[in-house]
Each structure stands twice: as structure tokens, then as C-alpha cells.
């Protein structure tokens, strides 16, 4: 379905994901989930993985969803969404927007296989990953999205590995649309959801969703942290349409990664008496590589 530029760029506010849920103040995932639901519209089925989003938004008997919500397990949102899509096809129902969604653990770790299968089979499903870079629901344990240096409850000395590059892994399945987004830019995030839903086949949107509890920042800084993630090159913003990287968000003034790291308690140990440890240079190198790779 073709949409005009005006429709694509309109910020949608439909209250399909309502207030009164139990997320922490400043939760990036709650904000992202609302933006995704409102961009998708009423004709949508949300297949949600176990995790923070599911727990804070779907306690019986008062869920926050005004669209149909289906939750089964931690690692099978993509397979469940595949089944919903197959049912709609078989029963000649629809069209309907089917959105599988989960956190970084249910996307990149335990649910990776189900998601890969859904992409490979070509289901008409949008997968949205809310990336808060650790297992927040169980108390901030390391996931394969936890960035280098970040302290979590299972990497108390700081994480020793680099973050798995999920958007590129998704794109390498040959799916028609991949995008990254952050929760500070409502228009961009919702435009990407609307764009994705206008394309037939599997789609992947990766949203950086700061977690005040796990990242160790004040809730009101979530938006600022997203902007710094972009301006440092830590989290590049782009789309991959039919395998080609496009719409890369240029960074007007490149900010050193220190500015991003310093706002977050999880990186506090990387600064001794205000002076950066060698890991900071390594993280800067990751940002530099992103800047070079995507020509940010």
C-alpha cells in the first residue's frame, strides 16, 4: 500500500498502547512499544515475547493493549507470528499487520532461531526488537547485545565482547526491509514502522530503547542518551531496502563516545578519577568503524 510522504511523516497518537502499565519512569521500551502500536493502527496483531514489555503491559486482568495481543513464550514470538500469518492466509482473512516483538534477549539469543526461520520462510510479519542491551526483566544480565565494557549483573567487571550486529544479520537473510531507530525521534521511528508495514514479506526494525534501571541513568535522560548514541556513531541509523543501505542519518558534529558513556552508571568503572581507561578507546574505535562503514 503506497502512502504519501505526508502520511508517512505524520506522528500517530491513537492510544493503542495505553497508560497505566507498570514500566519504570523513562523506560525506552514502553515508549517504543506505544509508538509502534500507534504507527501500526487498529488493524494489527501484536505477538509479544516474554520479557519486560510483556510483564509490564499484560498482567491479567488489565492489559495495556487496545490491539489484539498474543503472548506464548520467551523465544517463540516470531514462530507464533508465523502461525498467525499462516492462519490468516489459510482462512483468507486479512489483510492485517502482524508484528512480532521482543527484547534483545528474545531476539538475538534465545529467540534467534525462530526469528531466522520466520525471515527465511518469507512470512509477511514485521519483527520489532526493543534493544536495551541486557536481560532487564530478570535483573540486568548480559545478553549478546550487551556492548563492550558495559557492567551487568553477570559481567560485574564489564562486558568483554562486542555487541552482535543484528540488523546486518537480519538483512543477510535477504529480507526486503531492515531499519534502525531510537525512541528520541518519534517521526522517524513511526515512519519506519509504516514503511515496513507497507512492504510484503518479513521486515526487521531494531530500536534502541534505553533502560534507566539497567543502564544507570535518570529516566529523563533516556532521550538525550539516544541522541548521543547516534551522534557518537555508537548506534547508526539507517535502512536496508532490498539489501541496499539507504537513508543513513548523517552526524553533523561527531561527539566523542565519552559523552555517551559518562551519563550511564553501567560504564562508570571505565573512568578512574575522571580519566578514561583503555576500554574507552576501544569503544571509540567501534564508533569510528560504524562511522566509516555507514559513512555517517
Amino acid at each position, binding site marked *: 500500500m503506497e502512502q504519501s510522504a505526508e502520511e508517512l511523516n505524520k506522528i500517530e497518537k491513537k492510544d493503542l498502547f495505553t497508560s497505566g502499565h507498570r514500566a519504570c519512569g523513562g523506560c525506552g521500551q514502553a515508549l517504543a512499544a506505544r509508538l509502534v502500536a500507534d504507527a501500526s493502527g*487498529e*488493524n*494489527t*496483531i501484536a*505477538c509479544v515475547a516474554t520479557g519486560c514489555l*510483556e*510483564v509490564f503491559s*499484560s*498482567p*491479567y*486482568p488489565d*492489559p495495556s*493493549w*487496545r*490491539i*489484539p*495481543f*498474543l*503472548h*506464548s*513464550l520467551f*523465544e*517463540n514470538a516470531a*514462530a*507464533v*507470528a*508465523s*502461525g*498467525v*500469518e*499462516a*492462519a*490468516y*492466509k*489459510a*482462512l483468507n*482473512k486479512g489483510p*492485517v499487520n502482524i508484528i512480532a516483538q521482543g527484547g534483545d534477549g528474545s531476539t538475538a539469543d534465545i529467540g534467534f*532461531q*525462530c526469528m*531466522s*526461520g520466520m525471515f*527465511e*520462510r518469507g512470512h509477511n510479519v514485521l519483527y520489532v526488537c526493543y534493544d536495551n542491551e541486557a536481560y532487564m526483566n530478570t535483573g540486568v544480565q548480559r545478553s549478546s547485545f550487551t556492548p563492550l565494557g558495559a557492567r551487568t549483573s553477570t559481567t560485574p567487571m564489564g562486558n568483554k565482547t562486542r555487541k552482535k550486529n543484528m540488523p546486518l544479520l537480519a538483512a543477510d537473510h535477504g529480507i526486503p526491509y531492515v531499519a534502525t531507530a531510537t525512541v528520541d525521534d518519534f517521526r522517524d521511528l513511526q515512519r519506519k514502522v509504516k514503511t515496513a508495514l507497507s512492504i510484503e514479506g518479513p521486515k526487521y526494525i531494531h530500536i534502541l530503547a534505553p533502560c534507566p534501571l539497567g543502564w544507570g541513568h535518570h529516566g529523563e535522560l533516556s532521550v538525550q542518551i539516544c541522541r548521543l548514541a547516534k551522534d557518537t556513531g555508537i548506534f547508526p541509523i539507517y535502512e536496508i531496502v532490498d539489501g541496499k543501505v539507504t537513508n543513513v542519518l548523517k552526524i553533523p558534529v561527531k561527539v566523542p563516545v565519552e559523552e555517551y558513556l559518562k551519563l550511564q552508571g553501567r560504564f562508570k568503572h571505565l573512568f578512574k578519577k575522571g580519566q578514561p581507561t583503555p576500554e574507552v578507546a576501544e569503544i571509540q574505535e567501534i564508533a569510528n568503524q560504524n562511522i566509516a562503514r555507514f559513512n555517517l
Partner: protein
Amino acid sequence: MLKQIEGSRAVAECVAMCRPNVISAYPITPQTHIVEDLAMIVGQGKLDAEFINVESEFAAASVVLGASAAGARAYSATSSQGLLLMCEVIYCIAGMRLPIVLTCANRAISAPLSIWNDQQDSMAMRDAGWIQLHAEDNQEASDLHIQAFKIAEQTSLPVMVCMDGFILTHAYEPVDIPEPKQVDDFLPPFLPKNIVDPRSPKGIGLFADPRFYLETRYILHRAMEKSEETIKEVSADFAKTFGRNSGGFIKTYKLEDADLVIVSMGSVVGTIKELIDRMEEEGKKVGLVQICSYRPFPRHEIYNVLKDKMNIVVLEKSISLGRGGILASDVRWSFPRAEKKDRNISSFIAGLGGRNIPMDDLRYMVEKVEKEPVELEFLGLKNELISEKDL
């Protein structure tokens, strides 16, 4: 129409006649022929269904879960490790009251790896809230699938049809395959009760805090118990429509004046009946109780037919390691405590990992329990393969 046909093919044809909308499965021996045949039936356009080839049994179960929650009649099949890999979803499907039908081509569980038959796999799922029906032969396996969709959809409970791997799935037997019209008349179209639908948005799979969870288990347990009526009704309806008895709760054979009764389930029942006939010629009165519905467990039926029988032996192809016979425990529990005193209920484990159960072994079992009760014995054990130091 009577056909000389492989068990898997017969099941596939019957499943297809039930018109599932979504089929999803992952290959595992000895289930494969069933889903291969279904893939061909769908591929040839003889069944209008979505056939989803997935990357694991876990995904297969998740796909049929999603399909069922969206209003489709959904089917899957698996065996052994595949069923174990599905375990998390198996429980979830029951908890969500989704009327999915799944064939378990019964097979042993690793380690050591064995592709051959026993019933440990479905036994591992016995507490999940699925109705479990066990087939004696391929006619019954075929018939049970037609009944399974009706039972599942009437009770909002998932049904697992268990058939012994290889012994049934790969055996060619004459099977009476019904006409599609007969099945259409017997099995009404699926009218789902609770689905995800944007026209009437609701949440399925919400989480329940301690104020609510306990009741969900109580309701599920009571629904399982109550499904007894539906299983019996559907079996009776089936007999009326198709002219043969298949399924139900239990079946008996030469029980009336039997001095000793064997309780068992699955394909081994055929061999047991043969033994009973031979022993009858020798003047011995042995009877049989065949469990068809293992879950819900036919406790009251067993008590009713066996309350006057003092010598009972349970033969099964599964074991609770560190405890003993699983079916034997269930049978022992079927008698009130006060009545257990003088009743001997012996327990034999046999056929694990596809070990043949020859008539002579069964005869040995019967002759042994005629003399004395047996707490637990492995039938056909090769002592030369067992060293004390491994114990």
C-alpha cells in the same frame, strides 16, 4: 474403502480429511512419513492448507500455537527428541486451551540415541494438560485422528494421538479409509472460541500473578477430567457413523472370568491378545485391559472392571527412573487404599528402545506372576550386558 496401506499414509489421509488449515512440522524419524505424505497431499492441491516447513520442532509447535490462536484448525506431528524440544510449547498450548492435534510416533529418548519404539516420549508430556490417546493398530490410529479433532474442539483441549513408531507408522496393514463426505458429516467445521482478531481485540496469553494462577490449573485439571465424557461420546458417535469401535476410554478382552489380567497400551496389545488366545487353548484364563485414553486416566473404569480381579500385571514401554513403571503407578492408584491389601499388581517394563517383545517373554511374565507378585522387572533383560560396577 479398505486399502493395503502404510500406517503413516493412512494417518496422513485421515488427517487431510479433517481439513486442517495449518500444518507445521519438522522431520524426525519415525514421524517423517506422515508429514511427507501430508506435504504431498497439500502440494497436489488435494488439501487447501498452509504447510509450514520450520527450523525445529519447537518452532513447529509455536507455529501451530499461533495458527490456532488466530482461528485455524492446526496439526503437527513429531517423535522423541522432537516432542521433548516442543515441551515448553506443549504446556503453553494446553494452558491457552488451544485445540491442536498432534501425532506422536512413539520413540525412545536419548541418551543413548535410539530411533526405535518405546513410549517414553509421550509419557514425558503426560502432565501437560493434553489428552493422550493410544492406538493399538493402524485402523485405530487413523480413526483416532478423526476423533481427535472433534474431541479437541469440543473440549478446548489439545489432543496427542500416540502410535508406536515403526511398529505402526511403517507397517503395511489393511486400513478402512473413510470417504471424505463421511468425515465432513462427522466433524463439523472448526468454530474457534477465543482468537486474536483486530475486530474484537483481546489479549491471549496474559500473565497471571498468584491471585489467579492456581485457578487456571484447577480449571485445566477439571476440564481434563470432564473430557472423559466427550472422549466416550465421540467414540460412540464414531462407531455409529463408521461402523467400528475405535478409541474410547478402555477396552477389555476376555476379561470376564480371567484369573489374571494384563494391563497395557499401544501396539503390544495385539501380541498380548494372541497370547491370551493360545493360553486359553491350554486352559488358562488370562484377560486384558487396554488403555486407550492415557490422559485423562481411566481410573474409575479400571477400578470398575478390575475390582474383583486379584492378580494384575501392568506391561509398559516406559519408566520413571528411580521410581519404576509409570503406567503401573497409575493402575495401582486406581484402587482405593483399603482394597489394595490382597491385590497383586505386578509391574513389567518391556520393549524399551525398540527391543522386540516376543510371545515367549510375555508367556514367561504371565507364568511368573501366576506364582508370585513382581514389584518391578525388566522383560528380556540381557544380563551379560550388565556389569555390577555400572550400577
